[in-house]
């Protein structure tokens, strides 16, 4: 087949394809996915989401299991978004042997619910004494942590109200609340920010009301040693809403996960479909071309493969061999190829009887030439249509294997996100932003190729259009 032939036959196909509206819709969706995949580095809010998806330290500053930002539009009580404050008002006092440094961070709090945490991050060295406190709009000052740290030489450190200040914050609150209630409250089970950002009056423990206004987070460091230092301080306030699609119970950004999953879904689907359909088409043509004993032996092998319950075998193989994503694709292709064989074989049976095949054979053409030059090209349109329809199947199968926790742990796929959601009880606790988007992505990806495949099918079988 020459290039010009290919071009004209493609143009012919395209002029027909253009008229099928659903096919065009599928192409648009496909283009959209490709766009998202190509611009992934620009669209990812967390740049290392791909490599460090399972690294909890990477996600530690994000809020835990919160809905997306736009959930606020539908709710009467406004939840705070996450914020990072790096600008501080810095002052230093030199008292000879002792240095006192002070940083003041300002946080304007206007939401109806408190943020999840107040985290101080930075780097330091030596053994500074750090006082970490919050000055509230009502003038109250709460000292959360007051402690000497031994940081060694240049180490990152992190102070979290939730982890390090549960007790001190409860002590502060106790002054306002009914002693009965205080006694019954277990400090280990409180969320300190609930009290820190609440009006200081009775009821602060049971039903805190937000105290809006300008908060100041004060960090004071008393340094005695020569090499004591603190630098790069920043305050992180994980909100109650976050990102485009919220976060999961492991504090991971769901949008980053769904976005990273696109390339893997495309890879799994397209590679599996291309490999298995190519194998199936060649198998069917060879079987039909040779006929006789070859045909019946090949038919037997085909029958055995057809009788395999695909998904259960795939699941057991994954459980036993713990495959990487590439091995999984090979395993799927090893079973998917049977799909087109039957149709291809009967089509090739007809082609074999054509006179031009006979003429070519009379001219002394070899078997391989007849098969690959004269028969397979005629089946290319059919192959493309069936490839498109195998892609969703491959994606769903990978997702199902991943759902059982057997996926490749070095990558992020939609099935794995759903597997984590299921095992962490997202369904039970109603974390819909964790369950819906990855599944919707699978559904849309499936829809894309179904639209394209069915449109091609329609062109190939014009009889089915109308009567």
């Amino acid at each position: 087949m020459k290039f010009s032939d290919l071009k004209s036959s493609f143009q012919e196909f395209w002029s027909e394809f253009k008229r099928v509206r659903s096919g065009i819709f599928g192409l648009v969706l496909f283009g959209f996915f490709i766009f998202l995949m190509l611009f992934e580095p620009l669209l990812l809010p967390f740049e290392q989401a791909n490599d460090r998806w399972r690294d909890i330290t990477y996600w530690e500053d994000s809020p835990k299991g919160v809905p997306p930002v736009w959930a606020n539009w539908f709710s009467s009580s406004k939840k705070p978004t996450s914020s990072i404050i790096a600008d501080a008002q810095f002052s230093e006092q030199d008292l000879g042997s002792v240095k006192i440094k002070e940083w003041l961070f300002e946080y304007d709090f206007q939401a109806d619910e408190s943020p999840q945490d107040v985290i101080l991050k930075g780097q330091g060295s030596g053994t500074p004494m750090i006082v970490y406190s919050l000055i509230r709009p009502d003038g109250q000052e709460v000292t959360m942590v007051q402690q000497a740290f031994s940081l060694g030489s240049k180490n990152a450190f992190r102070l979290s109200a939730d982890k390090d200040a549960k007790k001190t914050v409860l002590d502060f609150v106790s002054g306002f609340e009914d002693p009965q209630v205080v006694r019954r409250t277990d400090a280990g089970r409180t969320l300190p920010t609930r009290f820190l950002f609440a009006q200081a009056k009775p009821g602060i423990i049971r039903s805190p009301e937000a105290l809006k206004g300008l908060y100041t987070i004060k960090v004071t460091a008393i340094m005695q040693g020569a090499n004591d230092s603190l630098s790069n301080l920043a305050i992180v306030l994980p909100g109650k809403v976050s990102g485009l699609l919220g976060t999961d119970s492991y504090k991971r950004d769901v949008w980053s996960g769904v976005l990273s999953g696109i390339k893997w879904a495309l890879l799994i689907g397209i590679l599996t479909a291309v490999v298995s359909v190519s194998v199936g088409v060649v198998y069917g043509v060879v079987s039909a071309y040779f006929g006789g004993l070859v045909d019946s032996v090949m038919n037997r092998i085909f029958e055995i493969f057809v009788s395999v319950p695909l998904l259960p075998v795939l699941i057991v193989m994954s459980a036993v061999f713990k495959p990487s994503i590439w091995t999984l694709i090979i395993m799927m292709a090893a079973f998917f190829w049977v799909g087109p064989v039957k149709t291809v074989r009967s089509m090739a049976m007809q082609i074999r009887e054509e006179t031009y095949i006979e003429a070519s054979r009379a001219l002394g053409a070899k078997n391989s030439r007849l098969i690959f030059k004269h028969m397979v090209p005629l089946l290319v349109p059919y192959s493309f249509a069936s490839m498109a329809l195998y892609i969703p199947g491959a994606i769903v199968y990978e997702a199902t294997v991943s759902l059982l926790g057997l996926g490749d742990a070095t990558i992020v796929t939609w099935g794995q996100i759903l597997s984590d959601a299921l095992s962490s009880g997202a369904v039970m606790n109603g974390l819909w932003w964790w369950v819906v988007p990855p599944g919707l992505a699978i559904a849309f990806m499936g829809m894309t190729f179904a639209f394209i495949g069915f449109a091609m099918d329609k062109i190939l079988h014009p009889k089915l259009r109308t009567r």
Partner: protein
Amino acid sequence: MFWKYALKRILNGIFIYIILIFIFSALFNVTMERTARALVEEQIQSDLMALRGSQMTPEQTRRFIEERRERYIQRYHLDKPVAERVLRRAWDTLSFDYGKSTFIKNSAGERDVTKIVFDAVPKTLLLFGTAIIIDILLGLVLGIKKAQRPGKMLDKSTSVTTMVVFGLPSWWLGMLMIMFFAYTVKIFPSGGLISTPPPEAGFAAFWDKLYHLLLPVITLVVLGFWGRAFLTRNIVLGILQEDYVMSARARGIPERKVLYGHAMRTAAPPIVTMALLALLASVSGNIVFEGIFSWPGMGNLYWTAIQQNDVPVLMGNLSMTTGLYISGLVILDLIYGFLDPRIKVGGKG
């Protein structure tokens, strides 16, 4: 001649089943043997525990363990060559002796894998059987409606829906259904086969089972019957373009009669096979779905076996699934041969 065709097809099915079991036995040989050796060690430990009352010197204990190990290895044929072990295991599987599970027990507390698997089979058949029947009925009705007026509103919109649900994983829809109908609007149970505590026997028990069956069946049908309708439509539409249908119409036979008397007669065999084939594929493809609804069938058994790393149960379950799947294929061919007399003659269609 039907019985001859049937016999041939059944024998062929059994032959394929035997071959597949051999392949599985060879493929998973290493894992199966690791489990068997662990089982031997476990049995030696329990033998030791039984002997704890009698005083033994360390030397005696060591000799006892070695002697036992040798005996068990002989009993499980672990000292034989690999080929023989593979053949033996395949033979055990074929005679429905799946061995002992590592952790999982059935409702009666037994660790016999065969019993565990046989416990699960009827539950899977109940769930998917119910779904399949509703699925086919709805699909057939909708498909014929679509074929009668191709390209019109109903046909187009339902075809689009078919494509929309094409790549939708059933288990994901199940998760959404549970999230909505069991936890948000609490009208359905979140899973399981019966309520705890189980209601008294009789009508209440029946109703309870039906109540638990409803949500998973609805989920399966909502996803499935579009595909069935699309298939029916294509087959019926193809036949409605045949010459004999046109001649029937030309003779003035009423459209209803043309459709059900002439067209459906030809359409029945392919519709039945393709529908059953698609459903067989959907059972094998949706088996994981049971895990979402904690429906104690074979699909759920895969979940628990993987979570508990129980290899014998996994293998036994796989053999049973394969057996059922092949039986389904054989039954399919028998129905096809029954409906379409051309098949059983053995001509090449």
